[in-house]
């Protein structure tokens, strides 16, 4: 447990992405199997230890520490794992088992002995080990490491391509001994079971104005960028699996989507809700997301379907090396053969010049349904990740609103001496109501101005948060607005960024929240 706990402690306190990668590389280099594999599984959330409820830990602590003193401490520290790790008064000699053994013990612990065992572990552990142990049991490390970052570290450690790791990642299991063999060049690349494995998707780059000059429009096709969630669908012997863009299996949230297809096929598309293939807005789709249990009412009110974009596998044949035109033909064939209410084909937009397409984007876009246009090169294979020069997303023009700067927090890494994360708000009567946060969009010079304003106009501090004088107006750009029950203002902006500083503008000219809702919601 020692090296595992020190690793996650280091990761927690390191804010630079590159340094986190280095820290992980070091760990992979110096830790034997299967420990490093289990650690990798914990970091990437691929392992859950569920059979010890956190209430059990609390109970053990209550038996050992005065209840009132614990409550006061917890109130002050604010984090359960930290409070317990710091307050635990008992000491026992010995060493905790390594992480791999510890996971085995925790998974198989039986109810009768769990109190005694955990008590003893807590006493043997040092503070950081105790903290790590409780984090492990309670699930969710929250140390700011994404699985993408962990895979980046794997690639660096084994001097392999990140893309190759992504391709097999969803087909391998902890403790990943074959993976590490391959990374250390002592084994072949692990083989995976295609029928059950998510394949990382091909993503698009934003289209920039200068791109037009260089692109020949005859080499490209265009289709709408539908405003749903991107999914990958694996059908095999009428069995269907739906994966989100990050590889999470979301099949259970959409039990209605079915296909009678017997052969194995992997499709790429956009999951939407609506009737007759006409999408409802994103807000409606959100009613269906992140639900473990789906009610019939939800299915009836917001029926799901998929607009198909692409095909990756057919009858066990990998089609990803074929160009887009060939794949599109195969996709259309499959679609006409297997037509049902859950699958629609994403339409190809005819255009004869960029000027023509610009006009289409301007005149034919449906705000509720489209996020913009996708432009795809006809000759491109299907490449996982975000390769340059193949697919472009041409989003609709952002909406903007002038808002008032309210709070600021210092940034991370390079920006750690700057106040660079900003909360802004609109008037709600004669009070301000925060509507969002943004930490990019401005240039270095604007950042300096903002930083200076925050430092010179702080009126209150809440821990790291500074409340500022409500005098600074900023122009905020955003893609769309959703209504939200989680935010006090009732709205949530998508992709907000600070477009311009409007120091010239008086705060009295900033609009009311209700006007904002009327206009954008």
């Amino acid at each position: 447990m020692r090296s595992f706990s020190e690793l996650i402690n280091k990761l927690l306190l390191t804010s630079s992405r590159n340094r986190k990668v280095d820290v992980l590389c070091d760990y992979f280099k110096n830790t034997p199997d299967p420990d490093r594999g289990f650690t990798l599984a914990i970091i990437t959330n691929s392992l859950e230890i569920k059979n010890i409820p956190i209430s059990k830990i609390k109970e053990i602590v209550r038996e050992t520490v005065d209840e009132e003193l614990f409550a006061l401490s917890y109130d002050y520290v604010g984090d359960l794992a930290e409070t317990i790790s710091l307050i635990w008064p008992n000491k026992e000699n010995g060493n905790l088992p390594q992480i791999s053994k510890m996971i085995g013990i925790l998974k198989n612990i039986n109810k009768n002995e769990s109190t005694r065992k955990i008590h003893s572990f807590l006493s043997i552990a040092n503070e950081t080990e105790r903290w790590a142990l409780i984090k492990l049991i309670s699930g969710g490390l929250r140390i700011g490491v994404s699985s993408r970052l962990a895979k980046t570290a794997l690639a660096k450690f084994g001097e392999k391509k990140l893309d190759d790791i992504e391709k097999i990642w969803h087909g391998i299991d902890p403790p990943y001994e074959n993976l590490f063999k391959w990374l250390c060049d002592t084994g072949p690349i692990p083989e995976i079971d295609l029928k059950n494995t998510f394949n990382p998707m091909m993503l698009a780059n934003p289209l920039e104005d200068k791109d037009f000059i260089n692109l020949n429009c005859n080499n490209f096709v265009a289709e709408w960028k539908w405003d749903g969630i991107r999914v990958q669908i694996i059908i095999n012997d009428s069995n269907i699996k739906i994966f989100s863009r990050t590889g999470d299996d979301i099949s259970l949230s959409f039990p209605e989507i079915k296909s009678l297809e017997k052969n194995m096929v992997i499709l790429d598309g956009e999951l939407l809700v609506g009737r007759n293939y006409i999408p409802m807005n994103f807000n409606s789709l959100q009613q269906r997301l992140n639900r473990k249990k789906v009610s019939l009412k939800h299915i009836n009110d917001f029926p799901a379907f998929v607009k198909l974009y692409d095909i990756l596998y057919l009858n066990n044949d990998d089609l990803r090396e074929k160009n887009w035109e060939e794949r599109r033909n195969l996709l259309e064939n499959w679609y006409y053969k297997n037509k049902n209410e859950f699958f629609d084909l994403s339409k190809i937009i005819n255009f004869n010049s960029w000027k023509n397409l610009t006009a289409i984007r301007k005149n034919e876009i449906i705000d509720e349904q489209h996020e913009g246009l996708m432009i795809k090169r006809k000759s491109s294979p299907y490449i996982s990740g975000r390769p340059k020069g193949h697919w472009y997303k041409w989003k609709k023009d952002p909406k903007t609103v002038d808002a008032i700067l309210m709070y600021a927090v210092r940034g991370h890494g390079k920006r750690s001496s700057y106040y660079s994360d900003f909360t802004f708000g609109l008037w709600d009567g004669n009070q301000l109501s925060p509507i969002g946060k943004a930490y990019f969009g401005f240039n270095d010079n604007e950042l300096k101005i903002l930083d200076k304003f925050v430092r010179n106009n702080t009126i209150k501090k809440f821990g790291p948060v500074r409340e500022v004088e409500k005098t600074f107006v900023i122009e905020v750009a955003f893609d769309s607005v959703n209504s939200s029950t989680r935010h006090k203002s009732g709205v949530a902006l998508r992709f907000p960024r600070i477009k311009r500083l409007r120091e010239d503008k008086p705060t009295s000219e900033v609009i009311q929240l209700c006007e904002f809702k009327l206009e954008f919601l």
Partner: protein
Amino acid sequence: MKWINENLYISPINTYIDPSKPVENAIITHGHADHAKPGHKNVLATKETINIMKIRYGENCAQNFQELTLNKTLKIDDVKITFYPAGHILGSVQVLAEYKGERINFTGDYKTKKDKTCENFEPVKCHTLVTEATFGLPVFQHPNEHNEIKKLLRSLELFPKRPHLVGVYALGKAQRIIGLLRQQKYDKEIFIHGALEKLCNYYVEEKIFLGKFLKTNLKDKKEYHGEIILAPPSAIKNVWSRKFVDPIICQVSGWMSIKQRAKQNLVELPLIISDHADWNELTQYIKLTGAENVYVTHGREEAIVHWCKMNQINGLALSLSGREDEEDL
């Protein structure tokens, strides 16, 4: 304690201890800004505390200064005042006041751990103890300070190119850290932010060994690869720190035991070294004094008061205002 009130006012001699506003007569336990304020008429303190006040606020920050040597008793009317070392910073004391046979001891800020940059703490028996409680929660159990300093040295070995920016309070903590580094045989020059200079010089005048230290110069081209630079935490958060390329941000404070607190303040290397008593020191000292009554001036009062109750001691929180946690970021 009828002859002393909740503002630490000793009525028979019209004198306050560590008053937060200018008064006629003040006894000052030590030179930190939340205890020593300028503008009093008469100040009674140790020689070192008086000097520190003059360095920070100017020669005339009080009308009259009166020195009192450690362990010597001064009789003012019917009240006897004796200073005992508090072990907190240079010149820091506990104040024992005796009146009509009753002994009341004010700890000021203190620690019982040994510290080469000040007189070591001495325990005092009393009937009533007026104690601080900055770290008055059982989650605060300060680790061995030498092991913490070794963490800094290990980090220097691991990252020989990166400047190590160490956040320390200018008075006491800065000098203690330099001293601890010297005890670990770190003999390179140590860089300090300008705000630390006068106080470091004063410690040297008082024959405390700090080795070679230099003020950082923001205009020179020096890159501070692998150097230790001490600065007040505010400077590290400020524009000042932008000069340093890819620094490791360290912070030395008792609060650093809380990881989330370190993380919030973007501290990469937290070092848990405090000049205050931790939970165990606080509670052990209460027992040792034999006090029947304990008054808690500032910090986590509730927990100490609760602990007193558990141990059949009368405890009361005074919640003095104006006492900030100096080590706080």
